[in-house]
């Protein structure tokens, strides 16, 4: 089952890279007086909350079982 955990972490890695570059681009093309900093802050906090809650659940789960045990 660790393979799924590895896949999730790989997805997370790609997702974070995409978002960091995307937010960098967004911040680079800001317009004077816009609300982008606040929006980026809310967006980042939401992402962090989802990741932390997911990791919290994952840590309580049993991942050592093999796939054959499922069926």
């Amino acid at each position, binding site marked *: 089952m660790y393979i799924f955990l590895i896949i999730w972490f790989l997805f997370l890695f790609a997702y974070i890279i995409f978002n960091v570059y995307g937010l960098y681009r967004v911040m680079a093309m800001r317009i*004077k007086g816009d609300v982008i900093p606040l929006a980026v802050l809310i967006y980042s906090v939401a992402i962090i909350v989802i*990741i932390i809650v997911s990791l919290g659940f994952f840590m309580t789960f049993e991942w050592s*079982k093999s796939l054959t045990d499922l069926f």
Partner: protein
Amino acid sequence: MAEYNFPIPGSLEEEKIVLFIRRHWASFLGQFLLSTAMLILPAIILIIALVTQPQVFKGMLLNFLVMGLSIYYLIALTVAFVAWISFYYDVYIIYADSVVDIVQQGFFGRKISQLSILRVQDVSSDIKGFLPTFFGFGDVLVETAGEQSQNFLLVAVPQPQKVASKIMELHDQLVAKEDREPGIIEGEGVLESQTEDKDIKEEQPETAPPTTYQDLMEKEQKNQQNQPSPQQQTSTVEKEGEISHDELDKGGEIKLNDK
């Protein structure tokens, strides 16, 4: 503090901005409701399933469920944020002499177009549907003349009639300021300068041939005085408007007197 961080042809000076327009918030209502539903519906379904069928949330299925939900929420959040960015960064800036249209497409797509107000031929506003009528927003179509016509569609602009009339007002002001004819010359649709016409018209009397009856009569008399006697005339004598035999041989060209 961030400034206007986007590359626009020419300089972008804040004091020259006449109108700075964003899309009306109501035009984002549909995407907002969809994004909210994408974020809330799975949670509601999970709560209902937890109450009605708690056996599903046991064992390895719970691992997959949490993992799937985690990925789903991260993607849904990004989709919602990208939709908002695309809405928020759709900006229309109207200067005294040009219209700038900035269209944002996600994180990595941005189209910036600039149109000279002098080239504007027609501006129309369009309010269609219940929400646009209720909230007072609509589209403004800015059309230009000429073969390479470049039309601007300002989407979901608040008070489109006012924006359209403002653009036409700026166009009229610019035409008056530049002292230009309202007529459109062929080709590019660029307005012809009146000052250039004046220069040409002033030069014309000096070079143009006499056109009045008196002028023509005076010229005729001068020609008659300068003409040789009939004996001296040969077949090659050229009168104004007559064709000589030589010239007929050459192809019948008519020579006009230079004097």
